[in-house]
């Protein structure tokens, strides 16, 4: 029987990793991630999880250790944040190119300088083109579930997956999380079967990732993209399986008050809760037909599904807790290009807010909705909550 436990986002990750029977954990401490691997190190030391915990001297090495372990057919996990993720960058490409289903938790933390430990999404969004799948989470329950779904999908398409949670707002804040028994998780997540090409055998040495001529390199890259496209279908199947075993619904995004919504706020991460609160209030007080689309899976990008739910709306506001410098909010730009093929497409407005962990309140969201209602012409960056 599952049970409810009041726990932080960080420890929700640890519990999910434990239940996923991960065999290799390698990590380097960094705020605000450290608690994830701290609890895991205790779980491993107490013998509750049959795993090897490899301490390393950097995040680059942590990912390298996961790559080595995964290449031998072991289920591998690491966690990091911000500068640590940036230091892993080279190895992120390797993990994806070598088609290794590593799952990593990244706690969204603003990049330095200036130094910060608070949340924004620039760290993980900088890694969108590495070939990793990415899931964003609003609650600690989603954090817990994403790890388990993550392994199930990653191991079928042979791609690594990054699950993303906000610094402090999720990572260090406790809320009730339904934790499942080992038997329940085992029912959903079988042991990893790496298959023929994915396992290193020392008695039959092969060359992995060797120098490949222009005559052949392209095909391997094509296969990475094809695996992402296949992952869309695998996600659909696994969201359904997950609901059957655990009773909770997941999808590429969450729709909130969307049925008759003319106006949609597209959001992600923990600030989605503030958005939902403000939207529910405006519906009740002013009868405004507004809804929320909370993005969860952004790699692979669910183009078809997004077009289906957003194509027929009057206006869309995208809230970005990130800046693609010299460009725009990343979620904003991605959504615009997703909608572009539609013949009739709503105007989309991009708002930047909450950078470096600056507080976002429901009142701020009401301001954004007000602003969107007044606008007709699409424009460049709209700033919210900066001293201008």
């Amino acid at each position, binding site marked *: 029987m599952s049970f409810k436990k009041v726990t932080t986002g960080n420890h929700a990750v640890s519990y999910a990793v434990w239940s996923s029977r991960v065999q290799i954990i390698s990590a380097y401490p960094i705020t605000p991630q450290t608690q994830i691997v701290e609890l895991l190190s205790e779980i491993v030391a107490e013998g509750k999880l049959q795993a090897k915990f490899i301490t390393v001297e950097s995040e680059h090495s942590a990912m390298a250790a996961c790559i080595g372990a995964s290449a031998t057919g072991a289920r591998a996990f690491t966690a990091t944040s911000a500068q640590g993720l940036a230091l892993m960058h080279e190895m992120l490409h390797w993990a994806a*190119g*070598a*088609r290794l289903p590593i799952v990593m938790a990244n706690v969204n933390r603003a990049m330095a300088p200036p130094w910060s430990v608070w949340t924004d999404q620039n760290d993980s969004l900088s890694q969108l083109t590495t070939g990793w799948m990415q899931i964003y989470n609003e609650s600690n329950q989603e954090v817990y579930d994403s790890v388990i779904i993550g392994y199930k999908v990653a191991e079928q398409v*042979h791609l690594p997956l990054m699950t993303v949670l906000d610094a402090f707002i999720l990572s260090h804040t406790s809320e009730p999380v339904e934790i499942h028994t080992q038997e329940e998780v085992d029912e959903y997540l079988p042991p990893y079967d790496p298959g023929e*090409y*994915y396992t290193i055998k*020392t008695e*039959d*040495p*092969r*060359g*992995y*990732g*060797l120098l*490949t001529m222009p*005559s*052949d390199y392209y*095909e*391997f890259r*094509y*296969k990475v993209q094809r*695996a992402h496209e296949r992952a869309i279908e695998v996600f659909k199947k696994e969201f359904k399986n997950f609901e059957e075993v655990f009773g909770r619904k997941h999808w590429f995004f969450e729709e909130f008050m969307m049925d008759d919504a003319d106006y949609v706020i597209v959001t992600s991460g923990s600030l989605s809760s503030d958005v939902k609160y403000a939207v529910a209030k405006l519906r009740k007080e002013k009868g405004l037909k507004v809804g929320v689309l909370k993005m969860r899976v952004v790699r692979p990008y669910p183009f078809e599904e997004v077009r289906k739910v957003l194509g027929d709306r009057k206006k869309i506001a995208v809230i970005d807790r990130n800046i693609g410098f010299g460009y725009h909010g990343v979620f904003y730009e991605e959504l615009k290009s997703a909608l572009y093929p539609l013949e009739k497409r709503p105007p989309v407005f991009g708002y930047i807010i909450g950078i470096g962990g600056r507080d976002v309140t429901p009142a701020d969201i009401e301001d954004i909705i007000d602003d969107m209602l007044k606008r007709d012409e699409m424009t460049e960056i709209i700033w919210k909550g900066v001293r201008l």
Partner: protein
Amino acid sequence: MADNKLPPSVYPPDEEGKEPLVFKHVDDYPEVPVTLTTMKFNKTGAWRNVRPVITDHKVGPCVGPCPMWVLIPKFMDLVVQERLEDAARVILERNPFPSITGRICPAPCEKPCNRRKLDEPVAIRSVERFLGDLGVIEEPGEPTGKKVAIVGSNIAGLAAAYYLRRWGHEVTVFESGNVICEHLRGREDLPEEVLEREIEKVKTMGAEIITNAADPDLSGFDAVLYAMTEVPKDADKTTGVTDDPRIFKAGHTEPVRSMGAAKKAALSVHQYLTGQEIKPEPRPSGVVTPSQVNYFHFPLASRTKNEDMSKEEAIYEANRCFSCGNCNSCGNCWVYCPDNAIQWVNDLPVVNYDYCKGCGVCVVECPRGVIDLEPEWK
């Protein structure tokens, strides 16, 4: 917009008689960038310009200062394996009386111990005492028919008697007084019964000890060794050889050093009696320095203060020993070799030079300086 006009990518077969590899379509490629055939043909050992050599002769800094060059790391390793009797035999190979030296030796071995740089030196003397007190006795050697007289029943004389019995010679020890090994009696740090036990050991080995023999008749002996409590002035210091080829002399004022001198002289006597050239044993070479120890692999552990150790304490203390220069099959080289070029044969590492690139990772990761890196060019 795929392009099916591209010519196929073709790779010739790696062996005669095999089909070439042909890639016409993306699905012909493996999903993962991996070679479809073995890489064993690629003998990467050809890239090497330095080679790791797994040595079997190196010693810790403890061995050289020991007057009897006891192979300390080797017996410590056997204690770790709980092969206590074998450990005692490693000591007896070079030091006949570990119960005595385990109490009175000034322990010059502990001074340069590489562990000192981490916390405290290993309590070598106490472990030696523990092993000596197990009372292991060895067999005398095959009889050679040669007779040796040893003049003086001091500790040097007894040590020489022990070794000459081990090598099969008949031994008679002549003591001018009426007490055997008088110079070590009445010491607070050496209980009378311990000394008696070690003297008994020499007798059990078959040496005869005659007391009150102030002026013995030495004419019937093939060789005579004078054991002294000072450095003899008229004999070679490393071999004990005197002007008379039949007569040898050894001694020192410090009892343990006198045992070392007696052992060297006894070896000369043995060489003389068996018709060999008299040649001293070479000093142990290949001392492991602190820079060759990988301290990262050793956790802090404080030195056992109790000098009369229990078995558990002896094993704990032996575990503190780095086993410098002595491969104890820890497997680090095997784990760290990035090219799988260390093979594990009979519980020991063996370098596969067909594939070893000479990166030297094993040399760095060997915690105890067993592996040397040698240039390929001479």
